[in-house]
């Protein structure tokens, strides 16, 4: 039985080695190939990560330098001076953080080499993307925690202003106004933070899943072989 299988495999090897007439590319065609531009999936991951960070950097710089002047006085009133200051502090930290992240991304990207074994290469690509995702999730979580009180204040201020200008509710006592404001604030904060959270989760699930599905499958397969 074993001999029979061995014969069959030997026969397959002979068949395999009988292949002769390959499609032949001449040196001119090969020469042109090394001068062509192409972007592979790892380069795409790197580009997407950089775009994410540059976009974040752009938004923070914009809010820092133009944002304050951009807001109309009515928006400033709704947001409150305190919140504007908080956004500025957050933006400053965000800029430093973006540069640190770019350094981390580049470090992990440089570790990826097609000359390593398949197992090492897959692991290094997955580590690279995981590092990016963990850092960005941290940013999003900090952003959500930071934004929660701001959205609360905005919701509260809008509700109080609306109540004062609305004839039906204009005669509410200050305590009642505060109560209405707090309810609206909680509502605004929870809804806004949930929307931001769902958006980021869906985005990373799609991007991460799209690029890494095949890699994680192969990583699992190699792990099974080792186990």
């Amino acid at each position: 039985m074993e001999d029979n299988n061995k014969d069959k495999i030997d026969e397959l090897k002979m068949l395999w080695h009988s292949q002769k007439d390959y499609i032949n590319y001449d040196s001119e065609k090969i020469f042109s190939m090394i001068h062509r531009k192409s972007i592979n999936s790892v380069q795409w991951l790197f580009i997407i990560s950089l775009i994410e960070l540059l976009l974040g950097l752009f938004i923070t710089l914009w809010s820092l330098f133009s944002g304050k002047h951009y807001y109309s006085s009515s928006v400033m009133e709704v947001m409150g001076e305190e919140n504007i200051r908080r956004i500025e502090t957050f933006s400053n930290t965000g800029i430093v953080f973006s540069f640190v992240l770019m350094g981390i991304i580049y470090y992990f990207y440089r570790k990826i080499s097609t000359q390593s074994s398949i197992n090492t290469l897959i692991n290094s690509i997955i580590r690279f993307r995981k590092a990016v995702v963990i850092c960005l999730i941290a940013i999003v979580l900090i952003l959500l925690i930071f934004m929660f009180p701001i959205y609360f204040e905005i919701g509260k201020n809008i509700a109080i202003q609306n109540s004062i200008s609305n004839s039906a509710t204009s005669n509410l006592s200050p305590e009642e106004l505060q109560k209405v404001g707090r309810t609206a604030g909680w509502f605004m904060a929870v809804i806004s933070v949930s929307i931001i959270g769902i958006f980021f989760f869906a985005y990373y699930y799609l991007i991460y899943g799209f690029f890494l599905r095949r890699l994680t499958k192969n990583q699992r397969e190699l792990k099974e072989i080792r186990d």
Partner: protein
Amino acid sequence: MNKTLETRETKFTKLIENNQGIVHKICRIYTDSPEAHEDLFQEIVLQLWKSFDSFQGDSKFSTWMYRVGLNTAITLIRKKNRTIRTSSIDGQPYFDVVSKEADETQQERLNLLYASIKKLNDVERALVLLYLEDLPYREISATLGITEVNARVKMNRVKEKLRVLMNRNS
């Protein structure tokens, strides 16, 4: 400087031209259409060129080609979902790789072998290719990043799987 580059490019092109069979085999087991085959071929050549400087020559050029080629096919290129069926592609003249003197049965057997290999997963395909190419287990395990014992055990399972697939397909 330009002359050096030219010499390097010429040397590299010549090496690829003489060893292109390796790249074509990798392309054939990982793609389902002539367009995808050419795309992958080009990406592998590009990756080989990019890392040509770091090719030390302490391993054989062909061994280095297998490693970079398989890495590119498995990790750097996303599989394109084509509507063309594998079996019909394998019968096309584009993939007519058997020597012209060989009889039709041998050609059919080879097509069957390729069709069966394509039913395996990415890692198993790499393992089969290296095995059929007669690479020693030491190099197979180094290319995959597993131990020699693991490579042998897995290869025995894959051989059996391949045999079943070929019987089912024939």
